[in-house]
């Protein structure tokens, strides 16, 4: 499991022994942390916004656009020089299967999809005298903003989260914005503008997550709203109750089930109020159930939830009461913030 922290260190941790096998440091983040608040306000400090791992390499991206592609055997992060990803980035996410394709977005930085292989080829070809690699090196797709609004003003762009919607195809992407919009892009067609743009609520949407149902997107905003959004109906199916703080990560998990039965789907949310909440995933036939199944006090503000699917044990005995004993049998990799200086962003190492 790879963990990136707010102070710039990136650790590779072996889950079983909980030991840090490997550690890297992103110097840009470290330098920015040291600078005084007068020189550099907190929100423009560099932080790690993208962390992706393959079996051979580690991809790290900071909010200034500093990209590094490091083999696991290296001792330091190997930055790719002069890759013009842009500044003020908020999220970098790779396609779950084709890890070489990744998308970036940020404040006033609309969605762009790159191919890592092409960037690496460009790196090899670039000479020392080139001040910058061509700005479209590795660029696969670039989103176009919506047209001017009624006042003839350009709509503001601030992407907070990106999800690749199709496992086979890196052209379908969902994006959530600071201006409470959820957008869908389909780059397989000629259209560079979003194919869908919906206003959801009135607070910035910080996280969107895909679930096992292709039509649904789980989203969370900066207050304590977590809901399920239907892309086909273009509206919110329901919002979950019982959460007091801003939810920073959502995961859909299929609970282990008796052989022959379908495991129930459960939504796990980690929030700043130091709790891990579990809710029922909306069942297609039953009405939406907003009530929490259970919650766990995690003692620290949570920024990321990861589920170790390999370790889900079988539930013993029949599911007796409404209490979900299954939850206690699962192994949660819920990591939280220890100090305000540290932030865990963990991704499971894909083999």
């Amino acid at each position: 499991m790879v963990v990136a922290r707010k102070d710039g260190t990136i650790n590779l941790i072996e889950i079983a022994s909980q030991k840090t096998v490997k550690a890297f440091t992103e110097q840009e983040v470290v330098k920015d942390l040291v600078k005084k608040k007068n020189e550099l306000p907190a929100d423009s400090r560099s932080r790690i916004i993208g962390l992706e791992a393959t079996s051979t390499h580690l991809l790290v991206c900071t909010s200034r656009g500093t990209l590094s592609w490091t083999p696991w055997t290296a001792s330091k992060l190997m930055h790719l020089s002069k890759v013009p990803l842009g500044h003020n980035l908020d999220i970098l996410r790779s396609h779950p299967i084709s890890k070489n394709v990744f998308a970036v977005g940020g404040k006033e930085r609309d969605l762009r999809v790159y191919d890592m292989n092409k960037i690496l080829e460009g790196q090899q070809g670039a000479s020392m005298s080139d001040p910058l690699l061509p700005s479209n090196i590795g660029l696969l797709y670039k989103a176009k903003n919506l047209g001017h609004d009624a006042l003839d003003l350009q709509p503001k762009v601030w992407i907070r989260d990106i999800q690749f919607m199709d496992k086979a195809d890196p052209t379908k992407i969902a994006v959530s914005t600071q201006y409470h919009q959820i957008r869908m892009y389909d780059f397989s067609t000629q259209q560079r503008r979003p194919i869908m743009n919906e206003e959801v609520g009135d607070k910035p949407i910080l996280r969107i997550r895909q679930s096992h149902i292709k039509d649904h997107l789980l989203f969370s905003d900066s207050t304590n709203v977590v809901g399920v959004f239907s892309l086909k109906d273009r509206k919110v199916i329901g919002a979950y109750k019982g959460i007091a703080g801003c939810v920073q990560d959502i995961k859909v998990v299929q609970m282990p089930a008796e052989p022959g039965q379908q495991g129930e789907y459960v939504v796990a949310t980690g929030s700043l109020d130091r709790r891990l909440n579990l809710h029922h995933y909306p069942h297609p036939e039953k009405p939406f159930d907003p009530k929490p199944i259970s919650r766990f006090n995690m003692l620290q503000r949570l920024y990321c939830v990861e589920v170790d699917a390999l370790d889900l044990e079988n539930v013993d005995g029949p599911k007796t009461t409404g209490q979900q004993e299954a939850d206690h049998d699962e192994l949660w990799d819920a990591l939280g913030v220890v100090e305000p200086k540290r932030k865990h962003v963990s991704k499971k190492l894909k083999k």
Partner: protein
Amino acid sequence: MPKVPVLPSDIKNKQKRENLYHKLKAEKAKKKLERRKQLAKDEAKNPELKEKRLRENVPRTLENTREHDDTMVDAEDEEVAEDIASDELASYFSGKTPKIVVTTSKKCTKVTYDFCAELISMMPNAQFEKRGAKHELRQIIKIANEQEFTDLIVVNEDHKQPNGITLIHLPEGPSAYFKLSNFIPASRITDHGAVTAHFPEIILNNFNTRLGHTIGRMFQALFPQVPEFQGRQAITFHNQRDFIFVRRHRYVFRDTDRVGLQELGPKFTLKLKWLQKGVYDRNGEYEWLFKPELETSRRRFFL
């Protein structure tokens, strides 16, 4: 034939009915008094009976039937202690002097200015700044940071009454919004005492959960770390059922058992509405936000 007792509701004549009712009431009170006198006599003879009664006859209250909260801070838990010790307020606990600026919402009235004056008298090293028409909160925060203030308090007014306090701990600290109610200025408290400039002692009661701890620390960070015991002034933040009662007293020890208390300053009540991580931002991330859906039971409290 046994006598059937006559009830007042059977009598149609109002005067007679009233007489009977008062007679029955007096009889009931007399019986109660006799029972209590007898009980007092028995307990005077046998103190064990009193202890037994006190032990068993504990009335059920909302506080002692409070819904179990798993975020109650366990003093021995290292992880929690470390989390608390390294939060944004840590600089106060390593010696930084608090410096507070109090301001109001735009275009407020006299009552709010009076409240601000009382607030400033409560906190040493606090100053008031009048809110101008063009002063936006983001700018105020920026300027306060430049001037090295540690806390910013914005008193909100509505319908000519102060109704809320936004407490922002400055460098990067948490912001909290409290609903303010029942403000009574010192002048309207009978026999109130005179305030002196001594640093007060702070009493924080019942801030038990993790959220409560954070709020308690925020209050603590408003006051100088070392009080002046000579002044015998104490400011109490008493949390009960999520309402925080703020009082200021002067105490005097009359002898080893008895303490005399004189109420000094303003009294007001606060209730936490939300807590944001970081300095206040309309689109910031809320660490805790009160929504009526969280009130699932009368016995559930958050602080």
